């Protein structure tokens, strides 16, 4: 029976020859990713039931990120619980502040993501790692507790949906615009419970960082996982980043594998996109919304806080002045240092931006750029729900780093193509 890449990876994890959509399996977990908001409850749940153990201290990766450095006393208590637990169990890959960063940027960068493996984490954007031909999905705290203690989780094998990315991206158009266009067409539940498999010539030309932006937002279409097959770009990234365990298994979809649906996109026709409030599916071409006044620009997050994103923003901001408060949040300490060493910080400083420490921060309305009532923010993040970045009466406009940088200069939504 023909299988998709997702089905093959789940079959392997379940120790089966084959699996089919809808089938319930117990899958072996390769990596459990742990963060500060959702892991402390998991730790407490295990302790309360007398199962305070970890299945493999080398297969758990811990990084505080959502509210780090601690934003208040309560979040400091969460960090303290996470820290005590990670040290007590001698978790091998524990990234403390100074090396901690936004989990979905940090794990690939530090070589924890390998093709063919199953990665889970109590954060919905865990689907990001699918860019590396791995199965990864977001879970809750109870699932995280079970995965930490047993290294196993129940899954229902998802049906797959194929997204074909044809053509090539025009100037000023980035992978963020592509995923916003996809979600605008299929809706925030357009891929509910499914595997979103991305293929096509436009994708083949994208860097791994650009691809991660696409799989990162698969959850915004309701998907269980986003997945991109292995190619030479994948190999090159892995050659540069994998450290202690460098072997992995490459799976690919059979030619006659079954898909619930196929959606084709001509990327050459996609323009810079902005998702209007209050759903990620609110994407429109910049031409339809340019000129709308903003109060803040935010460049960061697991979606677009990587070095390529900062380079794109810096290129546009170079020699310019921002008209609104503009917050730059490199996603990890390595990215922070790279940006500094490449002189990007000088560009941001000269333009009037502020540069923050790595954190999820204001993406989820935590801190470092929370919005007041009535304020509008153009942001490279992933969600524009009511109250997402602050006051329930504030608004978030999702865009690429280029569009966000151009909008920062003008103080209103702006087409990045005039700054290229």
């Amino acid at each position, binding site marked *: 029976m023909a299988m998709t890449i997702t089905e093959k990876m789940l079959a392997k994890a379940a120790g089966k020859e084959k699996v089919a959509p809808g089938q319930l399996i117990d899958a072996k977990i390769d990596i459990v990713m742990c963060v500060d908001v959702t892991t402390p409850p998991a730790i407490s749940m295990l302790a309360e*039931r007398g199962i305070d153990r970890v299945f493999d201290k080398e297969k758990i990766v811990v990084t505080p990120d*959502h509210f780090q450095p601690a934003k208040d006393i309560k979040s400091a208590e969460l960090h303290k619980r996470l820290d005590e637990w990670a040290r007590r169990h001698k978790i091998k890959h524990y990234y403390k502040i100074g090396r901690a960063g936004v989990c979905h940027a940090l794990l690939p960068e530090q070589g924890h993501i390998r093709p063919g493996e199953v990665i889970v984490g109590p954060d919905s954007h865990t689907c990001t790692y699918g860019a590396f031909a791995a199965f990864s999905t977001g879970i809750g705290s109870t699932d995280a*507790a079970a995965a930490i203690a047993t290294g196993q989780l129940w899954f229902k094998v998802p049906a797959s949906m194929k997204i074909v990315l044809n053509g090539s991206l025009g100037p000023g158009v980035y992978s963020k615009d592509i995923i916003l266009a996809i979600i605008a067409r299929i809706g925030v539940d357009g891929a509910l419970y499914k595997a979103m498999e991305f293929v096509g010539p436009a994708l083949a030309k994208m860097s791994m960082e650009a691809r991660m932006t696409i799989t990162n937002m698969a959850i915004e279409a*309701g998907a269980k996982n986003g997945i991109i097959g292995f190619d030479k770009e994948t190999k090159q990234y892995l050659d540069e980043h994998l450290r202690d365990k460098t072997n992995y298994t490459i799976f690919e979809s059979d030619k006659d594998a079954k898909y619930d649906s196929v959606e084709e996109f001509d990327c050459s026709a996609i323009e810079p996109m902005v998702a209007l409030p209050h759903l990620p599916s609110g994407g429109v071409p910049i031409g339809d919304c340019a000129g709308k006044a903003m109060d803040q620009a935010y460049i960061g997050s697991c979606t677009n806080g990587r070095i390529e994103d900062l380079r794109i923003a810096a290129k546009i901001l170079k020699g310019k002045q921002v008209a609104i408060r503009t917050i730059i949040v490199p996603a990890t300490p390595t990215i922070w240092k790279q940006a500094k060493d490449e002189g990007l910080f000088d560009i941001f400083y000269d333009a009037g931006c502020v540069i923050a420490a790595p954190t999820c921060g204001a993406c989820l*309305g*935590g801190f470092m750029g929370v919005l007041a009532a009535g304020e509008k923010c153009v942001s490279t993040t992933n969600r524009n729900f009511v*109250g997402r970045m602050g006051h329930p009466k504030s608004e978030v406009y999702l865009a690429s780093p280029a569009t966000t940088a151009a909008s920062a200069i003008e103080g209103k939504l702006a087409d990045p193509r005039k700054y290229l």
Partner: protein
Amino acid sequence: MSKAHVYKRDHINTDEIIPARYLNTDDEAELVKHCLEDLDTDFVNKVQSGDIIVSGEDFGCGSSREHAVWAIRGAGVQTVIAKSFARIFYRNAINNGFYIIELPEAPEKINDGDELEIDYKAGLIKNKTAGIDIKFAPLPDFALEIIEAGGLLNKLAKKNC
């Protein structure tokens, strides 16, 4: 008496159910105070123990925060009836032993304030106000097993004993 609180909208997300500004704690009593705050500021004042939330498609989409289930359950809500659920919310509910009901015609057959009685085993909702019986498909067996054990971790703990 179990009263229905109907929110006909689709895509009620976990940011609306429990905003991230309250995620600096996992204390259920604290979370309850802010349940559904960004959707309906009055919800916590009007909800009574045993009440039911009724909604549209894709309930619980967005963030994986299980705090959303804890806040709803902690507020005394006995179940959520929705046209469909977002994947992670669905898992989180089952994993917590919290029964949820998928019912495509939910918002059409239940009005805000209706009194409901639910027979989970029979898969039957009695809408006493409207005087109608509404059938629903019970959760699949694997989910019922988890719910009967009192959640995934209780099931796991029992297996370990």
